[in-house]
């Protein structure tokens, strides 16, 4: 009786003290895997939105940034290192980087969030959910190929034959090719499909892109081509050819125009996905999201350089005009 009473009282005290001890705050470690610096806009947008959501860098989250600068080998090495470092989550900003991260995290439960994947169908089971450790946003770059071609026709209605450059080693090579072919057929356009694997090859092929050969140049979302876009811009201006691209950053570097997702906005959108994952939702259960907004960006300087007058109907729709 005596022992029971004392044990109950002491037990109650211990229970009360034990249950009122505070929990320690976790600092998340996020690895960012990038193929080229062209995609870094999305990561910047991601960090900004994360901070707004309360994930302040150094306090609640720590970022490890890896830029492979176009090298697939380096990219895969970075991906493996992040897994060895046991990061809490990996964010990527291209389909190529996402493929590398997905491969490296196989057999682990490290979530991979792609902030912009041009062709997510390659990575996930369906848009309703990846079924794996992947989640993210489709940049829909392949999907809106038709919109870009339509824009090109609006800017230069005479265009019928277009030079399209593509890296056959790219993960989206076939998808880009098929999308261009399909939309070309619908919009009565023909393509000169040029396969390039390096800057050297691009430099070699660039002089052949003349006004006599083609009516315009089109660059799909491709890392190899994007890395050497300056060569193509120079050739386009020289030959006064409209150059339609798939990245806002390329327009900034001299391409005529693009219709594409805002990568900074995609990064912000991706932060919400990461927040959900940190709050306990499985990546496999999250739908693949689409960009909230596509931007029509026109470089008026380039337009003037190639002797093109931008129609008013296009100009009023432009989200960004570079002068």
């Amino acid at each position: 009786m005596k022992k029971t009473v004392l044990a109950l009282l002491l037990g109650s005290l211990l229970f009360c003290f034990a249950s009122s001890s505070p929990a320690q705050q976790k600092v998340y470690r996020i690895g960012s895997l990038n193929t080229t610096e062209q995609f870094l806009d999305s990561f910047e947008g991601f960090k900004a939105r994360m901070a707004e959501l309360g994930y302040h860098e150094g306090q609640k989250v720590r970022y490890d940034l890896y830029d492979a600068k176009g090298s697939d080998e380096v990219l895969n090495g970075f991906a493996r290192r992040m897994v060895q470092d046991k990061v809490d989550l990996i964010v990527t900003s291209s389909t190529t980087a996402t493929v590398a991260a997905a491969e490296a995290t196989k057999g682990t439960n490290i979530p991979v969030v792609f902030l912009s994947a041009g062709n997510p169908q390659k990575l996930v089971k369906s848009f309703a959910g990846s079924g794996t450790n992947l989640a993210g946003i489709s940049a829909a770059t392949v999907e809106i190929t038709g919109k870009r071609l339509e824009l090109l026709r609006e800017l230069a209605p005479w265009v019928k034959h277009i030079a399209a450059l593509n890296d056959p080693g790219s993960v989206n090579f076939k998808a880009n090719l098929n999308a261009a072919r399909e939309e070309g057929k619908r919009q009565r356009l023909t393509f000169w499909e040029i396969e390039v694997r390096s800057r050297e090859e691009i430099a070699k092929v660039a002089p052949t892109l003349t006004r006599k050969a083609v009516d315009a140049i089109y660059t799909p979302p491709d890392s190899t081509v994007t890395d050497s876009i300056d060569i193509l811009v120079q050739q386009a201006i020289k030959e006064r050819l409209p150059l339609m691209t798939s990245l806002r950053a390329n327009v900034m570097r001299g391409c005529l125009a693009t219709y594409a997702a805002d990568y900074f906005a995609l990064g912000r959108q991706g932060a919400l996905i990461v927040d959900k994952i940190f709050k306990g939702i499985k990546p496999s259960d999250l739908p693949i999201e689409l960009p909230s907004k596509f931007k029509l960006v026109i470089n008026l300087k380039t337009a003037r350089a190639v002797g093109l007058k931008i129609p008013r109907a296009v100009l009023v729709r432009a989200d960004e005009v570079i002068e």
Partner: protein
Amino acid sequence: MDWRKLTKLFHWKSGSIRRRLLTWGLTLFGLALIISTLAGSLYTRRLIKKEAAGLQKEIALRVAEEIEDFVRRKVDRLSDLAASASLDEMGSETQRLLALLLLKNDQAYTEVSILDDKGMEVVKVSERRVYLPAEFSDQSGSDKFAKAMKGESYISPVYTSDRAEPYITVAVPLKITPRTVVGVVTAEANLKSLWEVIGEIAFGRAGYAYLVDGQGNLIAHRDPSLVLKRTSLAHIHAVQEFLRHPSGTDSSPAQEGRGIINKPVLSTFVPVSGLGWAVILEEPVHVALAEVRRLERYAVLLLAAVLLMGAAAIVWASDRITKPIRELHRGAEIIAAGDLDYRAQIRTGDEIEELGEQFNRMAMKLKTSYATLEQRVESRTRELSALYDVTATASQSLEAEQVLQQVIKKIIEIFGFDTTRIFLFDDRRESLDLRASFETDPEFWMQVRHFVRGQGFIGRVAESGAAVVIENVWTDPRYQQISHTKATQRAGLSFLSAFPIKAREKTLGTMLCQGREPRHLAPEDVRLLTSMAEQIGVAIQNANLFGEVKQKTAELERANQELIELSRAKSEFMAAMSHELRTPLNVIIGNADLIRDRFFGEITPKQRDSLEKILRYSQMLLKLINDVLAMTRLEAKKMSMDVSTFHLEDVVDHVQTFAEQLNYNHNLKMLWEVEKNLPPITTDALKLEEILQNLIGNAFKFTLQGTIEVRVRDLPGKGRVEFSVADTGIGIEREGLDKIFDEFYQQKDAHTGSHSGVGLGLSIVKKYLEMMQGEIRVESEPQKGSTFTFTFPYAIANAK
């Protein structure tokens, strides 16, 4: 702190006051605190739920308004487009541009179409794909067209596209005048921003919101996977309430029930007017009431602390109460151990001190009672000791005079009387004579030696059987009345007492005790002297009986001696007679035998018959004489054992010859069953043969027809052999079985015919077997036959 003292304070045994106080005190204390804690907890719980209800309702209303506003803005935007487009030709580039501008300026819209009054798409633009005129379709059969053509706005149910995002289709009429509808503007609006709105709602510590449509299907939740699974939430409490009252408000917000996470939640719903949707807010109960839990834990802590303090207070108080009680208990133990001088020292100034005083008084009385009791016990012990001494003295001898003298001596020793005298009745019980005495003046008392029955104190007491005690003969008038001789006074004595001497309710005499000084005899002294007088009576009676027994014994001894002499003379006579009878009888038998065998010449058949009769009856007579002789020798213990070791087969052979002679006329069938390999036997072979001859002879004697069977078998387990002689003769009556082995016992009809005899055969058999350490038994049934079975050991015990 003295730890031992502290532990002693908490030490109690089962059923103690301290334990009871602690049990009841803590129980009542605990119950009161638990009730108060529960009441506080319930009150706080209700308060929190009330606050949660207010908060949830407020947030839900705000969110519902936001959603409603969102949709309304979408409709307004589209209506603005319709108004602008109405100024241009249907399907014109301007209309297309206006549609594209809407896509640019409103992120929610992803696709816009303009339908003509036939329902045919004339403009169709999308933010993601290109629609060529050839791909325009007829929408005349759609709900959106039908409703918008009536001049009303249309909002479709929520659906998800192939890209897993929620959409609604909005359609508004395209009017050129307020009443003239020339077409419809329709657009697809992405509701993902609503997901964001809903997903970002967080209240309390874990509150969240979601949106359901008019069928209870989930259309927005922070976990989009639930929406994409097209989850039906019609089973959830708050959704059920909404479906029951689609346009009403939640009458009991923050109700407890199962939520979307299948755990108890506090939930509230608010309908989104005009859309048939509802915003549901939920907060897990365990989170919402976490504060209550924390308070409950503190309450438990407080409860434990108060109980600890209460326990300490009760222990302290109970110690104050029980300490004097324990002192009393200790006192009781000391007194029980024999220390009757112990007094409890209790100075509490309350009822317990009174109890202590009472206890001390009780101890004092106990001491007094104990002392009195001891005196009584001592007195009684002395009495018993005295009585024992007298009894022991009385039983030491059976000589009456000697006993009486010794008893008087003891009485004088015990009581210190000056004179003690014992008078006993004479044989005729007419007078009492002095039989023993102790006197200080024997010469005087020589004159007073006889009393007539009823005369004086001696005679009266002997007659009445009642004791008389006169403390002072000089003052007691009874003395003058009763005394015949006045000898007491004359001897100068003052005290006189007389006690009857009794045995078996019969007065045998009187014991007189006298003293020089007047004396008071206590009742226990009177009782003791009466008992002593009774013991004297017993001793006298025993002495008398002893005398009688002694006399009778002497007479019996004499008679016995005479009988022994007579028996010996009889035996000697019988032995001599038998011997003397046998000698001439042998001569008769021998001569008759010679004559029958024609030793002295031929004889006639009649002579032969007569000789046969002479021989048969002579043999019988010889047998009788032999039996009598044998019995006589047995009784005179002159029969000895002639022990030898022999084989039973030899004895059986002799007996078979004897049996054949008896069965000379072959009237009976004689059967022999003798076991093979019987062991050699060490006993008297002749007596065994005689036993068998006796039994077989009897069998022939009592069997007229049938069989006689003799069996011999070994009993190796017992170390004995067994013989049995069975016949089919007349048998023995049940009452005769017990006497069959008695001397001279004969069955009825045994004196007639061939059954004649003196009844000694079986008696001799039994006696022989006793000598051979054997046993015999008989089984018989009248008119069916008898079986005599006897056993004896392989070797008699003293055979060596």
